[in-house]
């Protein structure tokens, strides 16, 4: 069987992101004799993927304007970042962020360093502005969030805004230049990303013109337009793979254009793959896609990701409770803080680390202050590389209180460091884990009780760790491929 897979990055730039999933999945599929052409927006010549045929869409397209422009003045924070991490020079996300910042600089908007590493990296996964609006203007309360994610509060979305000029590219046969009209509001980053998506769809279609594939497999909304177009031209069935929905990231603040692209992909797909039952249900709720059309294939972990834990001597005095991730609405940092306040009544020397950055960080710092628990909190900001390893290795418990998490690979990472974990039930990963404590994200009393129990009961901690060590060995990409191949076969036959 020969398939075309459409991805957004390869090799993985963000641990646990889409690139990681694509790497794991394609390796396991190749082992099962599936021949894969893997198409990404651009190749840099460093990729190592002997198990498949890696294609760069950009190589076939007239090089887009943005890539060829003479080097422009790089805003100072970026230059500093680049000096610290030279490898970023080839990171398309970084480049996009630079461009966005340049564009914004032109239009007079200042860009903070903080927003470079967060939204720039994560725009496909996170719509910062909408959160900000939600959080600062509406003062989200647990009950609001509950309501927001309850089925009845999701009236049908207004139909996709009649596919605007942004998407017209897909219907322009053989057009040589990307046809992307910038919105009236100017060239802010969001439009830039849509431009990238459009460009990718155009050049990808050209790149594989005339090739024969048994099916086209597209990962997440950024590749859906390309998938729809290519599958249509090649007369091949389309599989769209949903790693996360705009709704996971933004709740009701969802970007309508992204939602409509998601819907375009879902409607044109022969079959939809969701990374969890949780996501399957959400797709059905948000987009009305029939449950029968959606298969669930849980993510795996790479054996090499579940490295031997190395334990470090802890420096702080009290037990350490770790939150690690974006400090955004989706990740539920507020519930972590609320639980912390309750834990401290029972374990006064506990230390809470909220590692990461995001639009809710200032609010979390304020909340911690309001609750009078500043002394027990640390906000180290974004961690990377060795710092992440150290954070996991020295934590006594890792908590992922996400409000909505399509899968969530971080708990598996924590487990690979022999850390006990608590995950919210609103996460895909909770479906595959037996040896983790689970809690509704809003149930801060129970979350606190679980943290206290882990800190106070060595038997609980040790049993969780021992059993989890065994368990994560079974959560691998081979198992995912094993479920995916029959899905492939069913659409190819059909």
């Amino acid at each position: 069987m020969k398939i075309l897979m459409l991805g957004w990055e390869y090799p993985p730039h963000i641990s646990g992101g889409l690139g990681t999933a694509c790497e794991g999945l394609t390796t396991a599929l190749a082992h099962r004799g599936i021949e894969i052409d893997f198409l990404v927006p651009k190749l840099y010549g460093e990729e190592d993927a002997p198990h498949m045929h890696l294609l760069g869409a950009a190589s076939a397209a007239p090089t887009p304007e943005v890539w060829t422009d003479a080097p422009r003045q790089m805003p100072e924070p970026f230059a500093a970042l680049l000096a610290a991490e030279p490898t970023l020079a080839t990171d398309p996300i970084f480049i996009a962020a630079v461009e966005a910042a340049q564009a914004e600089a032109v239009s007079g908007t200042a860009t903070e360093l903080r927003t470079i590493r967060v939204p720039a990296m994560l725009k496909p996964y996170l719509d910062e502005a909408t959160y900000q609006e939600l959080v600062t203007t509406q003062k989200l309360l647990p009950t609001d969030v509950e309501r927001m994610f309850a089925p009845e509060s999701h009236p049908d979305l207004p139909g996709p805004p009649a596919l605007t000029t942004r998407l017209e590219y897909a219907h322009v046969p053989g057009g040589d230049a990307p046809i992307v009209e910038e919105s009236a509001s100017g060239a802010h980053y969001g439009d830039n990303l849509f431009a990238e998506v459009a460009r990718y769809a155009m050049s990808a279609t050209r790149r594989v013109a005339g090739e024969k594939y048994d099916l086209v497999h597209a990962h997440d909304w950024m590749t859906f337009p390309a998938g729809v177009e290519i599958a249509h031209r090649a007369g091949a069935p389309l599989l769209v793979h949903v790693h996360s929905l705009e709704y996971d990231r933004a709740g009701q603040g969802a970007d309508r254009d992204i939602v409509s692209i998601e819907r375009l992909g879902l409607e044109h797909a022969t079959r939809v793959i969701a990374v969890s039952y949780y996501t399957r249900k959400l797709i059905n709720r948000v987009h009305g896609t029939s449950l029968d059309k959606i298969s669930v294939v849980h993510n795996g972990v790479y054996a090499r990701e579940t490295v031997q834990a190395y334990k470090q001597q802890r420096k702080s005095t009290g037990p350490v409770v770790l939150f690690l991730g974006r400090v955004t609405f989706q990740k539920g940092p507020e519930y972590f803080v609320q639980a912390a306040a309750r834990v401290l009544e029972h374990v006064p020397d506990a230390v809470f680390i909220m590692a990461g950055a995001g639009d809710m960080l200032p609010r979390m710092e304020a909340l911690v202050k309001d609750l009078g628990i500043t002394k027990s909190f640390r906000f180290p900001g974004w961690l990377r590389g060795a710092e992440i390893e150290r954070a996991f290795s020295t934590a006594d418990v890792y908590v992922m209180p996400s409000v909505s998490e399509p899968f969530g690979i971080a708990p598996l990472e924590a487990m690979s460091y022999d850390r006990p974990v608590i995950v919210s039930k609103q996460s895909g990963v909770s479906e595959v884990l037996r040896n983790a404590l689970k809690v509704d994200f809003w149930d801060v009393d129970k979350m606190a009780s679980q943290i206290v129990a882990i800190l106070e009961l060595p038997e609980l901690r040790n049993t969780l760790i021992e059993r989890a060590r065994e368990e994560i060995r079974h959560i691998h990409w081979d198992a995912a491929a094993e479920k995916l191949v029959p899905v492939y076969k069913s659409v190819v036959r059909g």
Partner: protein
Amino acid sequence: MPSVCFYFEVHQPYRLKPYGALQVGRDHEYFDEKLNAEVLRKVADKCYLPANHSMLRLIERTDGRFRVSYSITGVAIEQMKKYAPKVMDSFVRLADTGAVEFVAETYYHSLAALYDKDEYKEQIDMQVGLVQKEFGQTPRVFRNTELIYNDEIGQFIADLGFDAMICEGADDILDWRSPNFVYKVAGREMRLLTKNYKLSDDIAFRFSNQAWAEYPLTADKFAGWVHDHSGAGDVINLFMDYETFGEHQWKETGIFEFLEHLPDLLFTHPHWDIQTPSQVIDRYPALGELPFHRTVSWADEARDISAWRGNAMQQRALNEIYSLGPAIRRRNNSHLLALWRRLQTSDHFYYMATKSASDAEVHDYFSPYEGPYDAFIHYMNVMKDLNLSVLAPPEKRIRI
């Protein structure tokens, strides 16, 4: 003339409510009364009442040739009286037929045999007293919680004066021997009745399993399997949870029809009859001693005590509860003693098991919680509250 011997276990624990760390020091109601009432009434409707009705009819229809034996734990009887008194009435009616034998066990369905022999004896005495009071019989036969057995337990029970004990017919214990004979406890005259786990589990576990090669199991087929043992054994011991009828195997599976037809089909072979445990030991000689080189139970694939003591959480919880014994007794308060004993019920520890595969499914089926870790957390929080709010010296007690 070989016999079939039916023995059914009837038990319902007092389940703990989800008891979080934040409740410690504030909340001294540990049990989930609502859930316990709900479960008991549900099982009464699905199993106890219809099954007792069937048993009574079978006994009457066969003029007492159909016989059964039960062990009903003290904690189950307490809850029946409170939440479904009709069930107790129907057990009393069964007792009145004279075709029903009541077997003894610990009142609290506890693991005291493994931790505290004085406590063990007291709980047995309580249960014997209860059977005498409710059913007018003095039990001659004993079954330990979940058929947990080793030589030491067997000898202890023999020394209390029981005539026989019920145990699991585990392969590695029986070795070349057949479960279908009467044996003796190592070093004692007390008899052992060994469960024929294959035929018992055909009914209890496999009856409705459509993937099983023998599905569907008819009474006719099963009676044939029993008759195949003619000349090769004295007694086929069919021991199982009573909840098999209507609760583990739903009414829709045809389990009641199976039960209804089985006795007549067993009697179609002129040599076979149905006896209770006491009748079996009075009629058949013991072939010899059956030594147990390990502790055996009827639970899980392993047929050992790992279902209750297999991980560090379970061991901690068990050590914790039994270590309170002296302090509890010193308090000399009957309510506190009963509370402590309800916390000894083996189910609490069963819910904390971290088994895999098919064992885990069975544990999950019984557990009222979301998993073993929650079960352990709730239990330990209750222990903490018991220690802080009740057992601590008055000046150190938490009051809120």
